[in-house]
């Protein structure tokens, strides 16, 4: 059996993989939904745009469901505090997740323009709201969330919904929007009818430019403005998961991890280089390559945030000692081990059949195409 410390590290990496999978896969259909009314000027165009994601968004969303389930199983403290501590934000997110399936499923079922227009707005919101909330949530991780644990491990959280909307969190929210709009638009540029490619390319270009500026700005704020957190008591990587057995203080900057592990720098470098790559490929009208680049932007951005926070998963601003870290917020060694085996066996199978489905569906969705099937 693998030792507890390594298992926790592996599960921290798997969490990153799942979040990146979610951002890349579900990110483009969020982006398409959010841009539906911008990229699609009439019903025909919108149907083409929707059909680029209709057969696959459902599978993409499972990346989120799986990430949620994996956090529940592997990081139960994180699951419990993230969902209950951000109660109103979670319900807003949930409303979007409820609207999506019905939006995709029901929009084309009736021809009435009012019906379709209403669902178009619903889809736009269901794309934009989660992108924003995920970005704001990530920003709040750097600021610390106002929670504390008592001796029974019961968590109490202070602060309401509007306390989440600090300037830095709004900045990360905007980064998330820019990143996934560029990603969605890049997808539309290579997947939708070729007549929409140029319009989508323009949107992707603007979004990528905004992303570059905001990402550098956030980096500057983290480097010069926000305080970081640090564990000051000895770290035992194989101790039982009890967050109260350590001491944490606010000190230094969130860049401490980068100083200790220079290899971490590849993540922000990847995010920046890939965003530039996206711009170059859009300009060259190589849209599939642009989409691959925007996928790497997602990976680089999430990794750079995760690395900056390491070993913290969720710092507490109210009681820093209650902060959740890689070393004290996981499940038991046995559960992490079982779950690792499950992931090693099933994730490749999932990737294989997902790949097959995308291959079957390859090629652009044309205007001709949407006339010829029963719909969904």
């Amino acid at each position, binding site marked *: 059996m693998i030792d507890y410390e390594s298992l926790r590290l592996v599960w921290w990496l798997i969490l990153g993989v799942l979040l990146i999978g979610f951002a890349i896969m579900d990110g483009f259909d969020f982006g398409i939904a959010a841009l539906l009314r911008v990229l699609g000027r009439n019903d025909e165009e919108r149907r083409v745009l929707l059909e680029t994601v209709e057969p696959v968004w459902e599978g993409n969303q499972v990346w989120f469901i799986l990430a949620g389930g994996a956090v529940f199983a592997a990081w139960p403290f994180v699951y419990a505090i993230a969902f209950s501590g951000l*109660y109103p934000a979670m319900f807003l997110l949930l409303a979007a997740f409820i609207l999506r399936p019905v939006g995709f499923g029901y929009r084309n079922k009736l*021809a009435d323009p009012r019906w379709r227009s209403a669902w178009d707005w619903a889809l736009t919101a269901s794309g934009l709201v989660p992108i924003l909330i995920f970005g704001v949530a990530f920003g709040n991780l750097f600021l610390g969330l106002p929670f504390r644990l008592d001796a029974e491990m019961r968590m109490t959280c202070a602060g309401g919904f509007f306390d989440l909307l600090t300037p830095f969190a709004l900045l990360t929210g905007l980064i998330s929007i820019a990143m996934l709009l560029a990603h969605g638009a890049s997808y539309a540029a290579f997947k939708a009818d070729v007549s929409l490619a140029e319009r989508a390319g323009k949107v992707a270009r603007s979004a990528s430019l905004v992303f570059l500026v905001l990402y550098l700005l956030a980096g500057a704020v983290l480097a010069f403005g926000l305080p970081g957190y640090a564990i000051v008591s000895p770290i035992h990587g194989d101790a039982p998961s009890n967050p109260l057995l350590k001491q944490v203080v606010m000190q230094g900057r969130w860049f401490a991890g980068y100083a200790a592990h220079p290899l971490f720098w590849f993540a922000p470098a990847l995010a920046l280089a890939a965003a530039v790559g996206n711009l170059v490929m859009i300009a060259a009208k190589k849209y599939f390559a642009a989409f691959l680049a925007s996928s790497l932007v997602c990976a680089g951005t999430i990794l750079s945030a995760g690395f900056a926070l390491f070993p913290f998963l969720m710092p507490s601003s109210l009681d820093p000692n209650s902060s959740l870290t890689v070393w004290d917020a996981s499940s038991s060694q046995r559960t992490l081990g079982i779950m690792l085996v499950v992931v090693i066996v099933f*994730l490749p199978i999932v990737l294989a059949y997902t790949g097959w489905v995308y291959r079957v569906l390859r090629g652009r969705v044309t205007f001709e195409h949407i006339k010829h099937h029963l719909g969904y």
Partner: protein
Amino acid sequence: MIDNDVVTLSRLQFALTALYHFLFVPLTLGLSWILAIMEAVYVMTGREIWKRMTQFWGVLFGINFAMGVATGVTMEFQFGTNWAYYSHYVGDVFGTPLAIEGLMAFFLEATFIGLFFFGWDRLSKVKHLIVTTLLALGTNLSALWILIANAWMQNPVGAEFNLDTMRMEVTSFATVMFNPVAQSKFVHTVSAGYTLGAMFVLSISAWYLLKGRNIEFAKRSMTVAASFGLASALSVVVLGDESGYTVSENQKMKLAAIEAMWETEKPPASFTAFGWPDVAERKTHFAIHVPWVMGIIGTRSLDGVLPGIHQLVDEAGQRIESGRIAYAAMLRLRADRNDAQARSDFDAHKKDLGYALLLRKVVADPAQASAADVQTAASSIIPNVPVLFWSFRLMVGCGLYFIALFAYSFWLASKRRLDAQRWYLKLVLYSLPLPWLAIELGWIVAEYGRQPWAIEGVLPTALGVSSVSAGQVLFSLCGFVVFYTALAVVDFFLMRKYVRRGPDGLGIWPEANTAAGAVS
């Protein structure tokens, strides 16, 4: 101290959203296999009408599936949002089947649902059939894993409390996975879904026959539904009995409440076919007993004893006293981890720790509880007897009716006389809501009957809540009521519209030149 308003509102919200979610999931479970059967006939015979049947029922499947997905996300969110302490306390055990469900089942169904609709022109016949089958397999695997998780709430095997982390942790995952309750629950629940799917197809087809539309289409659909439904209805009742047997092993209180069995009877216990349970007097008036039946169902023997409610409350009182010793030892250990006496006290009584937690709803500090407090806590393990008593009887009544109805349908189908009797078609049509009723009642028996426990004997429901305010939960609850009602209206409207249009109106069968019926 626990905020009882938060507990009540959180429970109400969970019950409403679970019952609502459970309107859509069973239809997905059943209809997905019916689609696979119809398509298999198409692949084997090459007759176009079977493909068209798969497509038409597939459109209705899609409308329902969207609601199932939409309302399912709520359930995953809610453990964290409203039951945060529960999530912490049992996440080590309960989270794993949920994660596996995502990896093994959700990916399968969600990835192939898209190809089911968009793959007709892109895939060969056999490949498309494989896609449909994998879709059905995915939905059913999802039921398997969620019921493994649920069964652990009913019968928490293979796990132990860890004092260092203040939570339950897995000791044997194989024991969790092969929980006997999970197996009987799985077969019972999916059979219920199959019965619902069969009734759905049977009833809508009967309506077409009554209207004289889509005759060939409807008769074939009914034949499939009748045979599939008969097998399912038989299985749901027979395996439901198995489910009752496993309940009697580990949830004696649930069984006693279903039977409104206040006193322990001399074995073999009788079955109360009818009666009026009176909670205030703790008696059942006007009871009509069928001798021996309950003892045989519940214990598979003539001499096994089924304890009555009074006896179970007394036993709970003893376990609460034992649990208090564990609770006190836990506090001593928290002060001094090396207290050997406290450690041995804790280990001797930790199996009853959950019972001490029942006191938390009665007094702030279980150590200070009086004899009367213990009595109150012990009595709190009695679930709502009349609700369970009646829900169970209605559910079983529906089940027996389904067997009769599907058996008759099967006989008519084999005689090719499905359209001969209008009264039969009307009966089938008006029976459409009954499987839904039975299924929701089944949920009530299983989950409301589990109260006051979230995890039987381990964690009282009231302790599992999040530290959120009652106002927040009230707000989200109202949001759900409004949002879900609106969605129900839209779903019902679309479903009705597409049923009314039918295969003929949609251009599915007979085949129209412009096939874009669903989108024009």
